């Protein structure tokens, strides 16, 4: 735009431009070819850290915690979604995460679309670690399964069992330790199941509401009846605002005190969920905050679920 007309007409570019384009084309093709060959050459194994520990990568920290409990002392477990404020739906990998998946011997993922980034990282890694998919272990299917499988406490031993099998296959010489750890892990879930059964015995069929279907399996196992509009929870889960019909149905449940308790996700607070929460507090409906992932580093899965189920029991009246 700034050049004179004469320079435009006499534009020397295209003569030089063609070779330039061809060269860059050649570079791309060469790079591509070299990348494809290096794919084939990449070792599928690796997976054993220098200190002899089995490298395991879990997509979320609650599964990572189960891995480190079962593999105690023999595995080095890394969780990708570890920060309580990280939302697995909006995830972009760092080089650290990609490198961890590329060198892992076992990969644990939740599945059901909850952690699609793991499939992407697996496909870009070029390696073939043992993959434990919780969705497959739990045989969850259908069009839109609730992906929060770690809230189905009675089935978590199945997942722990699958993790133990994977560890045994990856590291047979420590099989006895893994088996014994699996036994103690399963036993440690007993207190949680006891609270759940207590809730069921005392409050079966009690109507409750949630802002997201995170605790859905837990409420179901405890015999509680979720009466909040499904569209409300789905919209929050998708990161949208609920439609007016769902929003007013939710308001009505609270203001007319038709529910015994409101559960809300403390990690996914939006203006909408905050409004619902303060409405519940105003009308004296008990509010229980739950979290999607392990909230405090170092805390174990069982303790976390025990605290939450106890809070639910307490909110219902003990």
């Amino acid at each position, binding site marked *: 735009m*700034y050049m004179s007309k004469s320079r435009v007409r006499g534009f020397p*570019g*295209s003569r030089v431009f063609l070779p*330039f384009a061809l060269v860059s084309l050649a570079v791309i093709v060469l790079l*591509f070819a070299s*990348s*494809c060959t290096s794919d084939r050459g990449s070792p599928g194994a690796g997976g054993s850290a220098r200190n002899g520990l089995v490298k395991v990568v879990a997509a979320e920290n609650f599964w990572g915690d189960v891995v480190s409990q079962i593999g105690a002392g023999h595995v080095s477990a890394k969780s990708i979604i570890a920060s309580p404020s990280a939302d697995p739906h909006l995830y972009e990998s760092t080089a650290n995460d990609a490198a961890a998946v590329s060198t892992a011997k076992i990969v644990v993922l939740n599945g059901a*679309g909850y952690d699609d980034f793991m499939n992407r990282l697996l496909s870009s890694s070029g390696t073939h670690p043992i993959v434990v998919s919780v969705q497959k272990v739990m045989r969850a299917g259908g069009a839109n399964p609730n992906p929060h499988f770690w809230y189905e406490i009675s089935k978590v031993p199945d997942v722990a069992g699958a993790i133990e099998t994977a560890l045994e296959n990856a590291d047979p010489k420590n099989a006895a330790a893994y088996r014994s750890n699996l036994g103690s892990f399963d036993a440690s879930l007993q207190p949680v199941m006891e609270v759940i059964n207590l809730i069921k015995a005392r409050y079966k069929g009690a109507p409750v509401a949630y802002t997201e279907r995170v605790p859905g399996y837990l409420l179901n196992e405890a015999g509680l009846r979720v009466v909040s509009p499904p569209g409300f929870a789905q919209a929050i889960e998708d990161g949208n605002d609920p439609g007016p019909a769902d929003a007013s149905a939710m308001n009505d449940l609270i203001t007319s005190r038709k529910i015994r308790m409101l559960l809300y996700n403390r990690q996914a607070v939006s203006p909408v969920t905050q409004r619902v929460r303060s409405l519940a507090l105003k009308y004296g409906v008990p509010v229980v905050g739950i979290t999607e992932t392990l909230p405090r580093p170092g805390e174990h899965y069982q303790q976390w679920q025990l605290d939450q189920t106890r809070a639910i029991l307490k909110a219902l009246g003990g």
Partner: protein
Amino acid sequence: MGLFNNLQLPFAQHALLACTIVAVTCGLIGPFVIMRGMSFAVHGMSELAFTGAAAGLLVAGNAPAGALCGALVVALLIGTLGDRESDRDSSIGVILAGGLGLGVLLLSFYHGFATAATNILFGDLFGVSNSQLILLLVIGITVIIAIVAIYRPLFFASVDTEVAAARGVPERILSIAFLVVLAFTVTGAAQVVGTLLVLSLAIAPAAAARRFSSSPLAIAGLSILIALVAADGGLIASLQFPSIKPTVFVTGISFFVYIVSRIIGPAIKNRQNRALQLEEVVN
């Protein structure tokens, strides 16, 4: 895990290759985007890849195919509604808003996690699969061939539409052709590296290059070079500092280069122009 350990892993090589292809194609079309005043169109197209992906997911369970078909529709829409330059900005705004609304509607019909569609908005440079690389490569080669084929008339028409039209350059066809090329570049790249990176690679390098030189060839070369430095350099930086996401570095570098070009660009350009004038006087 340092840079060199990471570079040996396939995920890093895939990412490097994807960055290179996207940088070359974006750097190549960038000067035209700026000359034709179409930065906003790039923005609109890359965001509307989301709608295309949502439609593809719903109809065929295939987000990439949907995004590419959607790109064609968006290109034709912008071409017809934003025909006159005075209308272009507002019509792109309208198409963008309407399209995004449509995408949200489509996603509400799709039951299940829609990460394949929403992922387009963010991208995942370290999750590039072989099939995505092949898609990128095909798009890259097609775009380079197309741009080389229409380079001269497109350049002429972009510099001075009226004179070009008077000389029989088919501006309307060129304009649509460029929109189609642009749409394919942008959507193809957005699926792999995300909307944000496409924006920073298709606009900033060319904008910076124009501050350094007036020669069209130098602008094209510089634009590709800056895009390469931003994309590959950003990627390498994120391998060196592996807890920081690559997008941060790529957008950071291209923004930095643009700021530098605003500060020291005019001086360099003046010196060039003076040398040029001197040459003309001598001749």
